[in-house]
């Protein structure tokens, strides 16, 4: 299946060899996917994130999971655009954490977007998709219908991946944000290396659950973040 004729400059896996168990007629042709680290493979029906899709991450480990998810694609040669919306949050992505997650930092470009400056976020995203295979941004909320349709068309043309991170505040429900193809919710179930007055945080044990359109139900995995080995497992997915 030819998705993203322009996107072949970075490697995409052509689905999975073994699609038994997926069980739906529409999946007989496996989509092009962005490979993900082996521990995250179980979150996605084809062993990776479908090219041309929008994936949202939410919960107390959303940034760490998003960084781990995009690392193999950037490591394989795709460029990543990180969009910081200046007005919506007061934090910036720390480059060192991206590097630790396995992201090739030399192919990361950060844009500071100021909504009051005039340019529309959708235009910025569409311009960014011309040259970047992966776009990572804080959830901007829902986009106007025509802008979202243009964005979707460009995303499908380019076969790129957009990852939105939903802001997390303890005790507050996550606001409904941009329309996405998949949602990965995170829950921290433990911290490793740190106690009460001793040690140092080394990892967090996280339970991640994916759901959404074409995800065929809810899938769960338990992982340690940051992932020490971000290598991609090319073995067939066991369903």
């Amino acid at each position, binding site marked *: 299946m030819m998705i993203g004729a322009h996107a072949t400059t970075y490697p995409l896996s052509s689905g999975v060899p073994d699609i038994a168990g997926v069980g739906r007629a529409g999946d007989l042709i496996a989509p092009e996917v962005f490979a993900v680290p082996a521990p995250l493979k179980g979150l996605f029906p084809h062993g990776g994130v479908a090219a041309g899709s929008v994936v949202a991450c939410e919960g*107390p480990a959303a940034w760490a999971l998003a960084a781990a998810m995009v690392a193999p694609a950037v490591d394989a040669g795709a460029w990543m655009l990180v969009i910081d919306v200046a007005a919506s949050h007061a934090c*910036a992505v720390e480059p060192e954490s991206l590097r630790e997650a396995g992201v090739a930092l030399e192919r990361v*470009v950060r844009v*500071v977007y100021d909504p009051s400056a005039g340019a529309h976020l959708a235009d910025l995203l569409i311009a960014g998709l011309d040259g970047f295979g992966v776009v990572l941004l804080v959830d901007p909320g829902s986009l106007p219908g025509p802008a979202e349709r243009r964005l979707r068309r460009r995303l499908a043309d380019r076969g790129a991946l957009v990852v939105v991170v939903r802001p997390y505040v303890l005790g507050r429900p996550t606001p409904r944000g941009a329309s996405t193809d998949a949602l990965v919710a995170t829950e921290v179930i433990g911290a490793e290396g740190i106690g009460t007055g001793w040690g140092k945080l080394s990892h967090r044990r996280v339970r991640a659950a994916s759901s959404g359109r074409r995800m065929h139900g809810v899938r769960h995995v338990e992982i340690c973040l940051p992932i020490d080995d971000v290598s991609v497992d090319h073995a067939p997915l066991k369903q």
Partner: protein
Amino acid sequence: MTSPSHRLLTLWFPDWPAECLRDDGSALVVFHRDRVVAATAPARAAGVSVGQRRRVATARCPEAATPARDRDHEHQRFAAVLDALCDLVPGVDIVDAGHVVLDIKGPAGYFGGENAVIDHLCNRILPGVVPAGVSSPAVGVGSTMVTSAVAALRSHRCGHPVIEPIADPQWRVMVELAELIATGDVDADAADVLARVGVRTLGDVATIGVSAMSDRFGAMGARLHRLAVGDDHRRPVVTVPSEAPAVCRWFDPPVAETTPVVFMARDVVDELLSSPALHGRVCTGVLIEFGTEHAEISRRQWSHADGFPVTALVDRVRWQLDAWVRRPGAITAPIDRLSLTVTDTAADAGAVQRLWGGRGTADDDAQRTVARLSSLLGPDKVLVAEWCGGRLTGERYAWVPATAALHADPERDCERVTPTDGVWAGAVVRPAPNTVPIAPIPVDVCDADGATVVVGGRGDLSAPPATVRLAGREHSVTCWAGPWPVTERWWEPRRRRLARVQVVFDDGTAHLLAVERRRWSLMGSYI
């Protein structure tokens, strides 16, 4: 062979990036990728020199200010010098802000010799246009670009102009390869290999032969051999050959703002650099020309030894345009024309796609998109990470403008982000927080009794932290570690003494907190 009738004068302000920032005579050091690129006289007197690591430089001159490099500002301040030089000499080649090459054959005849030109330049022209606080330039004259640059380098060392004698090939063959490292004509590794086999001067290189140099060092070796035998055709152009690759764009209607011109420039640059007329070579010299409805013209020649990437050439267009529109009375009508003409090319040694790694179409697409985003949002809004080093989270990497720091060469981009000096003592490393606050976010850290937790002089906590009030909400602490005290710049008045503590909240989020002068703040979040 270069015609002996050409005489090139290199005018070089070695510390322009630092000296153009301030004129108060204070110590100031400018770094690029953690290495010194320029320093003011007080800093140099304290032992700071170009190429030093940041740690060494700050130890030698702790009182020096270390502002971020601002290439836009450098070119803005240099514009007046350029205007004055272009009024004097028709052929001026701009290598960088503070570094130009002039063809002075004509002016030498008019003023009565090369010494007279130098005297006129240094004593009459420059004093009126060089900003206060900038030291005297190095001036070198040679028959080729490389000998002229070496003469300027020697002038910087000895403090007076250096002139290569006319028709004296001995001067050229005695040029040392170590000097060519400083002028950028040979890389340090190749010069080191050559020195170890006894090849130390251009004369030695000339005796080896071009085929041997090409076999061992590739395009760089062949180029070095050409320099050794005097086959250096680079020079400022006065008349551009009609067959030179060029792209001209007319604005209809003419535009009165600079932003659309810069935006259009990206397309023009793309078209020029992908032109089949370049025959797979890289553009190392370009003539940028703007015109207005009133026939006012801005014309500048720029050169780049490694070949212009798209972003670098768009930057040159922007710098030239900014300088032109800021010059009082220079422009009285909207701009109706932009043209770019290739004046010099070189073998494209670095753009060949390699089997593993190397530059691919994804890199080219990204470069073009970065140029476009920079035009849309402004160059200060499109950033890439650059390693700086340090102990504190958020300081180890800096976000710098992509137009200045992004290269067409993947290896150089890797160097930009690769830690060069290992882990600093006292740093809290791995895992790094995922996000860091843009502005300090104060927090309250309290013990089980509700009292604020303090860190004592011995680096111990008054009580275990039980709750943290962050962004108006109170969180229970389930795990914590630290404190890890650190003293930054203990040797000077601006010293900082702080302690860091990791806390894990009951929701699973973890945070790195810092306490300084008994005030707690958020340093980063693991989310």
